[in-house]
């Protein structure tokens, strides 16, 4: 049983005009086995939430706490957070020229588990994960994210989710830029992950479209750096019908 607890989290970024507060007190608890969807308009700070939890150096924590089973996540380095069980699938995965997907995955898995994966099962696991994401086996020999199409990048993120098998998946706009077929493939991958014992997901999205394939336990509407309203799956349906207007006008 593991719990990610975010309490009154405040985050700012440096801009040309000085520090700008993006997150203005976010409180959220995700229990083991739960899927939470965070939905919000552009610029509401929902991606900042994911990157702050993962430890991106661009963001300065100015207040609040993030704990994983009581351990202070904010004190951890980025790789320590991953070792503690966090995984961030990025909206724009970064190119790493000259580093093959195979080398990257093996290095990551070794770092996470503290030992090199057994060769025989490893190759099978990687090929299986690639296959599930409809990625060609030669994909492993390509440089990480270099020259990948938008859809390939997202499917590669979910293949990593499968292989690295974290406890908590933070998925930042995993659905953006995907056509309907790719969206189905990605959603299936996420659902496979959720089917594993005790896995938690924080699904950040702008659109309700992905929620046709992934049924969240909780839905939160994120506006102007904080959670404006929380509810069940029906809240997503309301957003699908009416958009964010009710929340954005209230925030102003």
């Amino acid at each position, binding site marked *: 049983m593991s719990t990610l607890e975010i309490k009154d989290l405040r985050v700012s970024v440096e801009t040309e005009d000085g520090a700008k507060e993006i997150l203005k007190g976010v409180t959220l608890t995700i229990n083991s086995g739960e899927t939470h969807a965070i939905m919000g308009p552009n610029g509401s700070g929902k991606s900042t939430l994911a990157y702050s939890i993962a430890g991106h150096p661009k963001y300065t924590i100015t207040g609040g706490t993030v704990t994983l089973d009581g351990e202070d996540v904010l004190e951890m380095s980025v*790789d320590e957070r991953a070792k503690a069980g966090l995984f961030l699938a990025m909206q724009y*995965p970064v190119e*790493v020229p*000259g580093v093959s997907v195979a080398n990257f995955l093996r*290095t*990551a898995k070794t770092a*996470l588990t503290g030992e090199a994966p057994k060769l025989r099962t490893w190759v099978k696991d990687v090929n299986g994960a690639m296959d599930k994401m409809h990625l060609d086996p030669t994909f492993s020999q390509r440089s990480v994210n270099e020259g990948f199409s938008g859809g390939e990048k997202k499917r590669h993120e979910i293949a*990593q989710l499968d292989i690295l098998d974290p406890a908590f998946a933070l998925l930042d706009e995993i659905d953006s830029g995907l056509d309907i077929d790719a969206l189905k493939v990605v959603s299936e991958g996420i659902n496979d992950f959720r089917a594993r014992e005790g896995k938690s997901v924080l699904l950040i999205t702008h659109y309700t479209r992905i929620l046709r394939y992934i049924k969240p336990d909780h839905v939160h509407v994120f506006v102007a750096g904080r959670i404006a309203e929380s509810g069940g799956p029906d809240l997503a349906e309301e957003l699908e019908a009416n958009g964010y207007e009710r929340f954005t006008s209230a925030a102003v």
Partner: protein
Amino acid sequence: MTAAVQEALELGKVESHLHPEGSFDVEAHEVPKGREEIWRFTPLKRLKGIHDSAPFADGATKVEVEAATGVTVETVAADDAVRGTSGLVPTDRVSARAWAASTGATVVRIPTDTVIEGATVIRHHGTGSQTAGAGHAVIVAEKFAKATVVLVFEGSAIVADNIEIVVEDGADLTVVSVQDWADDAVHLSTQHAKVGRDANLKHVSVSFGGDVVRHDFTAEYAGPGGSVEALGLYFADAGQHIEHRLFVDHTAPKTKSNVVYKGALQGEKAHAVWIGNVLIRKEAEGIETYEENRNLILTDGAWADSVPNLEIETGEIEGAGHASAIGRFDDEQLFYLQSRGISETEAKRLVVHGFFNDLIRQIGVPELEEKLTSTVEAELAKNINTLITKDNA
């Protein structure tokens, strides 16, 4: 030959700083003071006087030859007619002095129509002599020959040399020059290639060691359809000066050049200089050229100068481009790798290896690949502690 034909074959004179007038006469080249365009980046004080009048003598290096079957390697007298067949005319004082002081030349010859398996390796071991050595080598790939020649420089020495490369029509030659010198070595090398009709030259310069290493690689074409690929890999440590000056002179139509140099720098006063000059002459219609230099600065205190120059005298070309970059570790790359559980140190190692990997693969000499990868690793190991402490500071 009639005058008209002669005239048509003569290349027009180009008024360009890219194309200085050469001369075999040492005194035609003034002693550089440091302000000259071609010397302004080079630390003259550390050249042990070879740019001025320091004497040359034999014995600066011991040479060991491992010739592949079918390749002849011999030493000829300084007045042998093979010298100068590449069209090399010294354009600076060091090159002119080395030319005048050479007591002989090493000639590597790959016979017509032969495809050579394996690399011919010529090792130069610096003997630690405080007197400079002047070297001369001529590498000739005869018509339709195919071979790889590797020059390795190790140990301590002060060396000025001229390396001539002649790639005859239809030949396919790879020349790799590996500067793996000890920390106190000084090496100024002028390497000039003449590339024949439909011939291919891959020229690779790899610099890791030495106090001052300056390499001038120039190429010209003897006929249409020739292609030059110039690759470079360097790793400058604290106090080291590594300079590469390239000049590709597109003297014939339908020729190609592709220049890619990549370097990493680490430590106080590590300095890398890259000057990439390309001249596309009026005659050079339908050519294609691209040059690229990327520098990865690993620590504070290191700096790089990178200057691409492209001079175009005809618009009737297939393509011409260049790129130059000097950068530090990309925070986004490191964050991405670390977010997968990879430690910061390991992430940096991956990024540096990745930075060089593509280039090492392109060199295409299997004997070298592993050695280069492990040398990159050894260079990183020198500074990996600094990398970490810098970040925590």
